[in-house]
């Protein structure tokens, strides 16, 4: 038994002839044509779905994954990033580069660069951040003609953080949601027990 080869022209014609409807059912054809035209006419009177984008910005959902930014700690107003380089290591396209600055009380990021033009917004850096320092913003419009402006350093990342609205996700919230299995299981078991 050999592998099937290219179909011949005769075969193609035979297939086509076998399925050909010779258009004898004129009433059916007319009805189908009218059905299609009725459909388009019906949509003529529906409201258009177009959004006038720059004038009316669309509302972003809470978990929107947009521009990346660094934030300050709420109470002390210090930089939240401790330069631990976890985000640098987890970043699949390797766009984050961090250098750590050792200090007495805590560490800081000496430099923090993010090549936004190669970022794929997978939120893994946010996910691993132990201090909720890197977050995503509910905005994406940083369109530019020069990709060098998308090479973000620490100051620009902090500025973006102040400029836009922050999305829901932070490292701790994400990890909480995914849940340590033991705790979640215990909770789950407790829930099942209560009705019983």
């Amino acid at each position: 038994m050999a592998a099937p080869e290219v179909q011949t022209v005769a075969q193609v014609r035979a297939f086509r002839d076998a399925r050909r409807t010779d258009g004898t059912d004129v009433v059916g054809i007319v009805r189908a044509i009218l059905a299609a035209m009725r459909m388009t006419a019906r949509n003529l009177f529906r409201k258009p779905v177009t959004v006038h984008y720059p004038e009316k910005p669309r509302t972003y959902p809470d978990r929107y994954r947009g521009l990346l930014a660094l934030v300050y700690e709420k109470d002390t107003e210090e930089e939240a990033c401790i330069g631990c380089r976890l985000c640098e290591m987890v970043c699949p396209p390797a766009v984050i580069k961090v250098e750590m600055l050792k200090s007495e009380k805590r560490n800081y990021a000496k430099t923090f660069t993010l090549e936004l033009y190669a970022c794929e917004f997978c939120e893994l850096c946010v996910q691993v951040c132990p201090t909720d320092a890197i977050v995503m913003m509910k905005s994406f419009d940083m369109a530019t003609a020069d990709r060098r402006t998308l090479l973000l350093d620490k100051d620009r990342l902090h500025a973006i953080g102040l400029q836009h609205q922050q999305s829901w996700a932070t490292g701790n919230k994400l990890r909480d949601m995914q849940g340590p299995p033991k705790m979640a299981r215990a909770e789950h078991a407790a829930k099942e027990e209560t009705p019983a």
Partner: protein
Amino acid sequence: MTAPSVKRVELDYTGSERLTMNMGPQHPSAHGVFRAVLTLEGETVVGVDSVIGYLHRCHEKLAETLTYAQYPSIASKTDYVAAMTSEFAYVRAAETIGKFEVPKRAQYLRVIVSELQRVASHLLWLGTWCMDMGGALGGGATIFLYCIRERELILDLFESLVGARLLYGFFQVGGVRYDVPDGWIASCRETVDLLDSRISEYEQMLEENPFFMARAQGVGVITRELAESVGISGPLLRGSGVNWDLRRSDPYSSYEDFDFKVPVETAGDCFARYRVRMVEFRESLKIVRQALDRLPEGPISSRPGLKSVGQTRVPKGETYVRVEGARGEVGCYLVADGSAKPYRMKWRGASFSNLAILPHIIPGHKVADIVAIMGSVDPVFGEVDR
């Protein structure tokens, strides 16, 4: 360039006024970047050489350099039209080797997103296929825009679930990364109901339309033997009379809990593939409804949330897992060596195998049929070239 060795069919008249025409890689109906070097006699195609690889990113090498925690978000870039199912295949492969348990809630969430993704992907297929046949300046564009309008609703759902519209990163080894937000289930139900009625509208526009039938019926027939031998899968295989759906034949992720039909058509032509997909729309929506009704409470991941890059280690072993993606069997052959990165990963893209059918069935058809056949095959070039 090496001379292509193309199998040419002979027409039943003498004469060889042959024209070589390049269709693609930049062509309105190339569906991405596909180049078909056609040999024409008049309007009839007598030979075709397909050239692919314009979108090659060497995903398989990439997978060897990325850990099990990193790769799922990259996996969505293979089949970017149905990103959820491609992540699914990779994550499932790691889970199979590592024997990681997946909580029931995560399994159901996976089913919901995969089925919504299938609907979204089929909507894009219907739109682009009609655009291929009808043209951007004709009725095809109308259906395309209707389909896109409805696809947006699903993308909005995904956006409120994971925050992204195209490349999700929803899956992680051991479960899923995001739980459903408040109110998501209600809006999902609304969307599903709306989609159900809109799909009937497309059927009204196309189903018995003589223009559409003339273009789709008897065109691009794939016989069952050819289909199996080339290894096409999904709606194409079912359109050729094979009752084969991985959700039914090799159930995974609790698919055995749901009640759905597997549509099978025997004609093997473009119209049969259209019918299969139209029924799949409805069946997918049915599965989504069932899963939403029965969504259990509990954890969404059996493993702790990701804290570092090398957190997931998979023991030594190898496996091949397959999931039923929108385009067919999305498979991942994974060889693990006990470290945090795979030793080897082979991605079996459904589109790669599906596209390999083209040189077998195109010769003998007219130029206009090529775009109809291409569209009915529904290739996504991210998955073909990987």
